[in-house]
């Protein structure tokens, strides 16, 4: 069974988001998503400063089998992208909730985060 940590929020498209104390948020893909993709070979992430609307594609994650779009869970501006994934895309398979975080963002409309799935609701979609 895939892990669904209780302290995160989720999208139906299998991204997770963690709201940080400083008002930013960290975003990645779920354990279920990495398992479904198989061996991840490449993660294409946006540049710092770019903005995305909630539901907009912010990048691509690619495995041996397929390339999948990454959807921004909330309207946000990129403050940091995880450059460590350039050299070690396989981190996505090993630590999807840890070292393989993908982007850190500044939320444009914090109220949007409350509309995302909690762990129980996300688990129910799997």
């Amino acid at each position, binding site marked *: 069974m895939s892990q669904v940590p209780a302290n995160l929020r989720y999208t139906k498209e299998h991204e997770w988001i963690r709201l940080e104390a400083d008002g930013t948020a960290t975003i990645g893909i779920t354990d279920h998503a990495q398992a479904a993709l*198989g*061996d991840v*070979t*490449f993660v*294409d992430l946006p540049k710092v400063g770019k903005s995305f609307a909630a539901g907009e594609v912010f990048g*691509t994650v*690619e495995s*041996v*089998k397929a*390339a999948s779009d990454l959807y921004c869970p909330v309207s946000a501006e990129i403050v940091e992208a995880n450059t460590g994934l*350039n050299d070690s*895309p396989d981190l996505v*398979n090993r630590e999807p909730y840890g070292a393989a975080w993908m982007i850190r963002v500044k939320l444009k409309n914090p109220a949007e985060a409350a509309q995302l799935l909690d762990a129980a609701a996300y688990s129910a979609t799997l």
Partner: protein
Amino acid sequence: MSESLARTPLYDLHAELGARLVPFAGWEMPVQYTGIIEEHMAVRKTAGLFDVSHMGEARIRGRDAAAFLDRIMTNELSTLKPGAARYTLMCQPDGGCVDDLIVYRFSETEFLICLNASNAQKDIAWMRSLVGTAKVEVLDECAAWAQLAIQGPLAEQILALTTALPLATIRRFGFLVGEVAGASGCVVSRTGYTGSAGFEIYLPAASATQVARALLAAGKPHGLIPAGLGARDSLRLEAGYPLYGHEISERISPIQAGLGWTVKFTKAQFVGREALRRQAEGGPPSSVILFSLADRRIARQGATVFAGDTAVGEVLSGTLSPVLNKPIGTALVAAGFTGSTELTVDIRGTRLPLHVSVEPFVK
């Protein structure tokens, strides 16, 4: 995906081994167990065991069997000796491929042919339509046989733990019939689709689980793991082997696919001969190339290949080569551009330089 999928005799074993099953050519097949890259590297370094029971089989039997095969196949089968096998194409009159196959000769009058799963019924109907007055029968044995492939540098050593057959005497594309893991009537051939050493085993469907379990148990201490179709695809692409529907198809001939060595124009007559000879002599309109990319992005089937701003081809297969740790693939490229050093491929709006490789990536 609404139609019901066929299951191989090893379906329960796959579930027990934690395989991820996907639809493939009408079958529910394991795409991976632990991970495509891990399974791929096991085949390159130790050994992997594949269930390829979805492949089809036809028996060709009768006084005219050898002459019949020479007439419908591009390669020469009448010169094949009993106990040997040969790779061949079966073509349409226009030179397009009906299928690629391996033909095993059992005796003067009896052959077994391995067919691609997606083409098996088409192939059998095609062959039967060409029998005419020849004294030959085309028997559908798809359901009778299971197939296992044990591939990798330790494959022979592991297989020897389960059989008394003198494996060392089997030459490349040779085979023996005998007992493996207590199952009699197994055809053990030194063939494969990975670019590593190894064997393929045709066995009575009812014996498949027994033999697979015995091989996995015997091989485990040596690093044998079950491997799925995902690794089978990346292995064959590294080795430069064609896959029907990608590098060869009804619209891509063996000449275009670089398989001219399987086409014997010395035979006076065979289906597709005139069209293939025109292509071989005049040069085909497009040809299949192997390529690698200096990037992490994979160029996948359907991606457009450019020379400057002109579209000159399309990607046929693409994957990450675990051995090279970079993307590799094949493309169908228009005549005049196949040796170009200026080719690029469009991956979701980004043009990346494509490096043509003359040699397969592993040998």
